[in-house]
């Protein structure tokens, strides 16, 4: 079990080990939904919430059920089922109790099931052998890091509409290169804190 403090993990997950810019997780929705700041904020919030909750649930399921039964190799299928079920549940609860929030988040919730950042956070948690509180800190930090990255990207892409990009690089290609520059900027945080 690693002994890094929860705060270090939290800060590192946002800046130095940003789940999107250094681990490349959640790229699909990152590219597809970073057109507008408002949309990306909505998606970012939803991701933070789902990520924290699913790391907690998956932690409990993995160490409470799978490990004692010796079923560790089933982690993939169990995790993805937990995530899908949780997203479905949240969608139903939100729809019932807060229609306003439902319409704000509505379309993003189902998208999150296939967001690899969510599954990735759970898998990293197991691989790095975090304790319970470390997992919560990591889930929260990774979610915030992802949200920060997508909002930044949305801002950049709004500015980019006014620039002249060679035709074959328009769209996804230039988005990838801009992300590369963003990742380089985030590398400036390296050395501040570090987790493996």
């Amino acid at each position, binding site marked *: 079990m690693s002994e890094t403090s929860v705060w270090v993990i939290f800060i590192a997950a946002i800046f130095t080990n940003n789940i999107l810019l250094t681990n490349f*997780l959640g790229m699909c929705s990152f590219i597809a939904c970073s057109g507008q700041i408002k949309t990306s904020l909505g998606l970012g919030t939803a991701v933070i919430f789902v990520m924290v909750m699913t790391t907690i649930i998956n932690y409990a399921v993995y160490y409470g059920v799978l490990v004692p039964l010796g079923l560790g190799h089933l982690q993939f299928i169990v995790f993805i089922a937990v995530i899908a079920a949780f997203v479905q549940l949240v969608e139903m609860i939100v729809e019932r109790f807060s229609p306003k929030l439902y319409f704000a988040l509505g379309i993003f919730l189902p998208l999150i099931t296939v967001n690899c950042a969510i599954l990735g956070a759970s898998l990293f948690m197991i691989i790095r052998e975090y304790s319970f509180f470390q997992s919560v800190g990591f889930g929260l930090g990774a979610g915030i890091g992802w949200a920060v990255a997508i909002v930044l990207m949305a801002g950049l892409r709004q500015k980019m509409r006014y620039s002249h990009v060679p035709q074959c690089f328009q769209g996804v290609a230039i988005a*990838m290169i801009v992300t*590369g520059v963003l990742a380089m900027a985030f590398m400036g945080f390296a050395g501040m804190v570090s987790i493996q």
Partner: protein
Amino acid sequence: MADNQMVCATCQPKGLCGGKGLVTFKEGAWANNPLAIQVLGICSALAVTNRLENSLVMGAALIFVCVGSNLIVSILRKHTPHRIRMVAEVAIIATFVILFDQFLRAFYWDMSKQLGPYVGLIITNCIVMGRAEAFALQNPPIVSMVDGAANGFGYAVVLAIIGFFRELLGAGEILGHAVPGFSSWYTPNQLMILAPGAFFALGIVIGIFNMIKGPDPEGNK
């Protein structure tokens, strides 16, 4: 832009997926290349391409999972109730991913360590899901297998190209061996192995693919 993810579901009317045998293969691997044209499944494409070896293993994993899941989804397509098809697809895909993961752990422990969580993340790779949903659900098993192989192959090739250049420029080596006439004078650029290099490499590859294919006739870029 935003409907890029949906290309799979809509390529039926355009006739991209309707071919048989060789045509299916060509469409999947080149004209409709999952990575460079449809821009699906980029997460793993970026993460594992820092070395050519990793890229090749990942490509093999994707071919295996794609062929296997397409085959099973296609065999079961008439028995799967429409409403639960997504869950069924995910379960089938996850099964193949677990198989591959266990295989790596048993025989190639170092490789399994290096790939880390990215083998598991094949489950959320949109390519596999996209093919099962868009192709295997409507087509007989054999053609579905060809389609799976083609898409996996197209993905693997692009992965290998990116992996080749990243390892060459980032470490000055290929498959861990020095390249004669190159490694002696070349100073490795660490940036290519780190995260930003991955983004630059993929961006450039997509740009070049677009250049070769020429402007999109439908202008939907």
